[in-house]
C-alpha cells in the first residue's frame, strides 16, 4: 500500500466501489471462491494473450507481402503434446480446486443453525427455528454457520445470494441444502435465479446480516409466539400421530424421540440416516421407508399438509428427545392405539389442543 500513491489508491478505490466488478465478499466462502475465480481469470487472460500474440505476430511476420511463399509444415507431435497437456493440467487444477469449494459449500457443518426456506411463485418464505417468519428477506447473524433447507411449493426456483457466493435450486418434492457463514454486517441482494414464470424478476429480496447482538434483538422483536417445533407439536397432535408413534411397548409405529440423525434399518433391507429428507419422505411416502420390524400401515399425508406444515413437523421431530409430552397427550385425549387417527373426543380443560378434522392443515 505504501508503494501506491495515495491519490491513485483513492481513485482506484472510488472506481471500484462505484463500478464494482464483483459483488461484496460477505461470507467465509466468498474470498475462497473469488481466489479460484481470479486464478481462472488469470489463466484465461494469459491463454488469450498467447493466442492473440501468436496470431498477430504470425499475421505480421508471414503476411503475403513479407512471406510470399508458404512453407508446408505438417505438424509437430511435441507441440500437440504441449498444448494438450498444459491446458489439461490447468483445467484439472481448476477441477480439483473447484470440487473442494463445491463440497465445502454443500456440506453443512454439524452444528449449523437451520433456517427453512420455502419458495413459491413469486416469493421466498424463510422460517427461523424460533418461529420468526420472513417474506422476501433473510436475517442472519455473523459468526455462526447457517444451513438453509430449501424446498419449493410449485416450480423450480433458485435461492441466490451473490454476496455470499451461494446458490441452490428450490425443487418441488425434495429438500436441498446449502450453508454459509456471514462475515460482514450489511444488506445484500437475494435473487431467484431459476426462471419461474411471470414475476420471476420480482422474486427478489434482501439478506440482512447483523451482529449477533442485533440478531438476537431482531429475533425477540419479530417472534410470532410459537417456534417451528411448537407448531410442529400442535400438528403432531392434531393429525393424531401419537396414536402410533408413542413409547408404548405395543406401539404400531417407531418411537420418534431422538430419531433425528440416527441410523435406521429399513424393512426393505439396508440402513438410512434419518435426516430432514427422510423425515419428510416418511410423512408423505411412508410405504417406501418403513423401519424394520414395523408393518407398512402408516397412511400418507400427501395433500393434507402444506410444505410449511411438513417443515414444522420435521423441526419438532428433530428436537424431540423424550416422549413425556406425547404420553401426556395420549392420557388426556383418549387417543389410544386402535383409534386409527380418528378424531377423539375433546378433553376437558387440559392444555392439549383439540384434534383437527382431517383436511388440509395450513400453517
Amino acid at each position: 500500500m505504501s508503494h501506491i500513491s495515495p491519490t491513485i489508491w483513492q481513485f482506484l478505490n472510488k472506481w471500484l466501489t462505484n463500478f464494482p466488478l464483483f459483488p461484496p465478499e460477505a461470507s467465509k466462502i466468498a474470498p475462497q471462491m473469488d481466489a479460484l475465480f481470479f486464478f481462472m481469470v488469470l489463466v484465461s487472460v494469459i491463454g488469450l494473450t498467447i493466442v492473440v500474440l501468436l496470431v498477430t505476430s504470425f499475421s505480421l511476420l508471414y503476411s503475403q507481402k513479407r512471406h510470399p511463399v508458404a512453407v508446408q509444415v505438417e505438424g509437430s507431435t511435441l507441440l500437440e503434446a504441449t498444448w494438450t497437456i498444459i491446458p489439461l493440467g490447468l483445467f484439472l487444477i481448476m477441477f480439483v480446486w473447484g470440487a473442494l469449494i463445491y463440497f465445502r459449500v454443500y456440506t453443512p457443518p454439524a452444528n449449523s443453525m437451520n433456517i427453512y426456506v420455502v419458495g413459491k411463485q413469486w416469493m421466498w418464505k424463510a422460517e427461523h427455528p424460533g418461529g420468526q417468519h420472513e417474506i422476501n428477506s433473510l436475517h442472519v447473524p455473523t459468526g455462526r454457520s447457517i444451513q438453509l433447507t430449501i424446498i419449493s411449493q410449485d416450480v423450480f426456483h433458485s435461492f441466490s445470494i451473490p454476496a455470499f457466493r451461494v446458490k441452490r435450486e428450490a425443487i418441488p418434492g425434495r429438500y436441498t441444502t446449502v450453508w454459509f457463514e456471514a462475515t460482514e454486517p450489511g444488506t445484500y441482494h437475494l435473487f431467484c435465479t431459476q426462471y419461474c414464470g411471470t414475476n420471476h424478476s420480482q422474486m427478489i429480496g434482501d439478506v440482512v446480516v447483523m451482529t449477533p447482538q442485533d440478531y438476537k434483538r431482531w429475533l425477540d422483536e419479530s417472534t410470532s409466539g410459537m417456534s417451528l417445533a411448537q407448531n410442529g407439536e400442535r400438528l403432531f397432535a392434531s393429525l393424531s400421530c401419537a396414536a402410533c408413534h408413542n413409547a408404548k411397548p405395543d406401539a404400531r409405529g417407531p418411537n420418534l424421540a431422538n430419531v433425528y440423525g440416527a441410523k435406521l434399518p429399513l424393512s426393505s433391507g439396508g440402513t438410512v440416516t434419518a435426516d430432514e429428507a427422510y423425515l419428510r419422505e416418511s410423512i408423505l411416502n411412508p410405504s417406501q421407508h418403513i423401519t424394520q420390524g414395523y408393518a407398512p400401515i402408516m397412511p400418507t399425508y400427501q395433500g393434507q399438509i402444506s410444505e410449511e406444515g411438513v417443515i414444522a413437523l420435521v423441526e419438532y421431530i428433530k428436537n424431540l428427545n423424550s416422549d413425556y409430552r406425547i404420553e401426556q397427550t395420549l392420557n388426556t385425549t383418549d387417543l389410544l392405539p386402535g383409534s386409527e387417527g380418528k378424531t377423539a373426543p375433546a378433553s376437558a380443560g387440559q392444555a392439549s389442543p383439540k384434534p383437527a378434522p382431517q383436511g388440509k392443515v395450513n400453517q
Partner: protein
Amino acid sequence: MSATIVSLPDQSTARIPKMNYLTKENGLLSWLLTGDHKRIAMLYLISLSFFFFIGGALAGLIRLELLTPQADLMATDTYNKVFTMHGVIMIFFFLVPSVPATLGNFLIPMMIGAKDLALPKINLLSWYLYVAGGILAIYTMAAGGVDTGWTFTTPLSTHYVNTNVLTTGLAAFIAGFSSIFTGLNFIVTIHKMRCPGMTWFRLPLFVWAHYAASILMVLATPVVAIAIVLIALERTIGIGVFDPTKGGDPLLFQHLFWFYSHPAVYIMILPGMGVISETISTFSRKRVFGYTAVAFSSVAIAVFGFFVWAHHMFIMGISNYAVLVFSLLTMLVAVPSAIKIFNWTFTLYKGSITFETPMLYTFGFMGLFTIGGLTGVFLGTSGTDIHLTETYFIVAHFHFVMVGGMLMAFLAGIHFWWPKITGRMYPEKISQLAAVVTFIGFNFTFFPQFILGTLGMPRRYASYPPEFQVLNVFSTAGATILGVGYLLPVLYLTWSLKYGEIAGNNPWQATGLEWQTQSPPLTENFTVTPIMDHEAYDYEWLEKQKEKEVTHAG
C-alpha cells in the same frame, strides 16, 4: 491490405456459365420438388436468414427492455415470451441447421467427389420439416407466444403456464427430425459415396467436422424428441412422470432434456469449426497444421460431448459425486477445442497470409471462441459454477461461443463459398467493414454481460436492481452496432447477385474438389467422377493444376 490471393478471370470477357444448377430448370416447382443438394441448400439459406432476423428482432426487443431497470417497455409476461421465442428460434431454427443445412448440404458431395447426397428425397424432406416447424413457431408467436424459456423446465411448462407449450414443443420436435435426417444423410454419404482415392484422411476437415456433428445429430436428437413427447403427455393428460405429487421426478426431465441439449451445442459449433479449418488454410496457403489432430479432436468433442450433460444441473440437488464425475468430464471435453485453436494458430506459421473478409471473420472467431470456451471452463468448475450459474455470465458465455464463434464462422463460410454458390464475388471493402463492425458490436454487447453475471445479475429478468444499469446500457448500445453489422451482408450480398464481379472457378486459388468445378456448379457437380490422387490442402498439387483446364460445360 492490398495484398490478396484473389484471382479472377478477365471481367471484360468472363461470363457466368450458362448451364449451372440455378439455370438447369426453371419455375417454382423445380425448386420446391428438387433433389439437388445445392438447390436445397439455397432453400435453407433463404429460410434460415428469415428466421435469423426474426430471432434478431426479438433480441433487439430484449435489449431495449433492459435499457432501464424497470419492466417498463412491455409487460413482464410479454418479456418472458420474447426471450423464450428468441431462444427457441435461434437455437432450433437457426444455429442447429445453419452451417450443416446450407454449406454442408452444398459442399459435402462436392468435397468428396460425389454427384449428390446419398438420399436426396430425404434431404428435401428435411427442408420441409424445417419449414413446417418454423411455421408452427411463427404461429405460436401469433397465437400469443410461450413463456417457459427455451428449456421447458418442468413443472413450470407442464402445470404452471397456460401459454402455447404444445405448439412450441411440436415445432421443436419437427425441427429435430429435420436435423436427424440431415445428419443421417451426411453420415451415409461420407461413408458410402467418396470418390476413388478419397480416403478418410484425405477428406477436408470441413467434412470431418460435419461427420462428428452428424453423429451427435443422429444419436442425441431423438432423446429430446421423447422429452418433448413426455411433456406433451404430462401437460395434456397428466401422466405424472415429472410430477412429484404423483411419484414422478422433475429432475428426470432435466436429465432427458440436457442429454440432448448439451450435445446440441457441439452440433452447433463443430460445423463452424469445419469452416474455420477451410478458411484458415486457404488464406495462409498452407495445409492445416496437425491435420490428424484436428480431425480426431472433432470426433473427440462429439464423443465426450455425450457425457457431460449434468454440468447444467450442478446446483439442482444431484449428488456431490455425480458433480465430480461430470465436472471432470467437462474439463476433458474442453481440451480438444483448445487443441484446435492452437493448430489453427500454427497453420499461420510460415504461411503466406492475406486478410480478405473470410479471414477477418476467422480471426474474430478465434479470439471470441477462445474467450467463450475458457469461460465455459469457469462454469464447468463446480465451485465457481455455484456463483456464476443462472446469471448473465452464462448468457455471455453461450453468446460468445455461439454468436462470436458459430455465427462468425457461418459468415466466414458464406463469404468464402459465395463465389462458388453464385458465381459472383461480393464487394470486398464493405464486407471487411461489416466484419469489423460486427466484431466491435459483439464485444460491446456481450463482454459487459460477463461482469453483470459476476456481479450476480440473474438471467431472464425483465427488471433488475438499478446498479446494473450502466453495464446494460453498454450492452444495448453494442447490440445496435451488432445489428448494423449483420444487416450489411444481407444488403451487399443481394447486390452482388447482380453486380458482383464474375468469380470464375477458383477465385481463392483454394484446394478442394469443389474449387475444381465451375462457378456456379453443374447440377451433377462433376461430369466425370474425379479421382483423388493427392492429400487434402495440397498447395503444391494446386500449383501443378493451374495449367490444366477443369471440366465445365457451356
